[in-house]
């Protein structure tokens, strides 16, 4: 892959957006959904993107992994320019966790975890061992052969997390990772993501509309409004507080 003069060294910036804009056609009308966004995410950071529905946060996330191409501006991933030619290689260094888990129902748990390796070099013996390790890391050792339809929401998201880790990604993108889960499950998933960030030094970019979620794990957060970043705030994450329904009601 020849990246020529576009190859740039930019220190600790793992993701860099420069004056990025994007128009969508909504109801036949051209609408600017992302408007000149400058942004960078550093190594080992847990970076949050918050904002109301339609503020552009999910679009930004999908531009960061190259799924959506910007109309203006440039995006650099691991100091390499992200474009049509480079995106399918660069995306392999990243992974994504979705709100709806997006597991394949016709594969069992361990086959889902192994899928990304199958898309790369094929499944090796080492991969299977690694998949078992990861399933134990996410607490699903006993569910290797289980069908996806028999899992709870939290278990599904943990399978999805094991699936993202199998390729040792440098960046994990999370799109509303806890929105489909209840409080207790959300806490477990966030704790897991925090553990991953600490033990594998994986950079995490997280989109959420839930301020509590962002506050508990993110070190920096961009607030999106009408396709622009209205605020960029550094946080000292207060840690993840386990909340049971009982605790939540009694602590007030």
């Amino acid at each position, binding site marked *: 892959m020849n990246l020529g003069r576009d190859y740039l060294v930019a220190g600790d910036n793992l993701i860099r957006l420069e004056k990025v804009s994007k128009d969508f056609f909504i109801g036949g009308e051209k609408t600017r959904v992302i408007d000149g966004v400058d942004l960078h995410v550093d190594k080992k950071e847990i970076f949050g993107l918050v904002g109301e529905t339609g503020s552009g946060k999910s679009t930004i996330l999908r531009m960061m992994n190259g799924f959506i191409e910007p109309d203006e501006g440039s995006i650099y991933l691991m100091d390499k320019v992200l474009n049509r030619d480079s995106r*399918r290689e660069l995306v392999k260094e990243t992974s994504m966790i979705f709100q709806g888990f997006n597991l*394949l129902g*016709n594969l069992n748990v361990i086959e889902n975890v192994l899928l990304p390796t199958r898309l790369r070099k094929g499944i090796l013996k080492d991969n299977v061992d690694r998949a078992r390790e990861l399933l134990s890391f996410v607490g699903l050792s006993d569910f290797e052969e289980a069908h996806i339809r028999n899992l709870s929401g939290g278990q599904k998201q943990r399978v999805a997390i094991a699936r993202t880790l199998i390729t040792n990604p440098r960046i994990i993108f999370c799109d509303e990772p806890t929105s489909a889960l209840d409080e207790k499950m959300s806490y477990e998933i966030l704790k897991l993501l925090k553990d991953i960030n600490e033990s594998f030094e994986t950079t995490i970019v997280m989109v959420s509309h839930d301020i509590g979620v962002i506050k508990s794990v993110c070190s920096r957060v961009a607030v999106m409004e009408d396709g622009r970043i209205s605020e960029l705030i550094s946080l000292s994450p207060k840690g993840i507080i386990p909340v049971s329904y009982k605790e939540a009601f009694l602590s007030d």
Partner: protein
Amino acid sequence: MIEKYIKTFNSFRTPLLQSLWETLDMMLAAMAAALAIGMVLGFVMFMTGAGGIYRNRTIYFITSGLINITRSVPFILFIIVMIPVNRMILGTGFGVDASKIPLGLIGISLFARFTEQDLLDVNKSIYETSYALGANIRQYFTHFLLREARSSLVLSFTSTTVSLLSYSTVMGIIGGGGLGYLAISEGYYNFNYELMWIIIILMVLIVHGIQTVGNYIAEKLDKR
């Protein structure tokens, strides 16, 4: 009464077997065409249609239009209109082999439309999922789309097969023969109602068999 049916069955054993073979011959050719070409056209429509990854109005319009035309012309007229085409391809407009052309075309059209619908039913985010996990376009088809749509595709192919069986019964008008033709020509026009009913029951059993096999395979493949 039963004896009468047994007697008819025994005396028509040879033409019944002959017709069954003709039906099978036509069906297998049409099924192969539906599977090979119909499925490809279904993928083409899925990819070039609204929301597809290679949106192309012209290609979609032409493919979809041809399929609609094939399916909307009354089949018996379609067979007649196709006679010159058969002649062009095979040198003859009539017979079992000539029947395979209109039957194959209707099979292609039916299964193409079914395939398109089955693919549209797969979770919309599957392309994004495949991209994010590092799949290329070919892997998107094989590891994601086909895998998640496979049991619906099996059921659709079963329906296509059953439809083809019923379409095949009118092939007699261009000398295609088959069970349906025997039931009409020998059974109905020749007042041999026993033979007609034997064939009807035979057809019911065949359809039931096809559907049972299709359901079984689809269920085995579906772990969702």
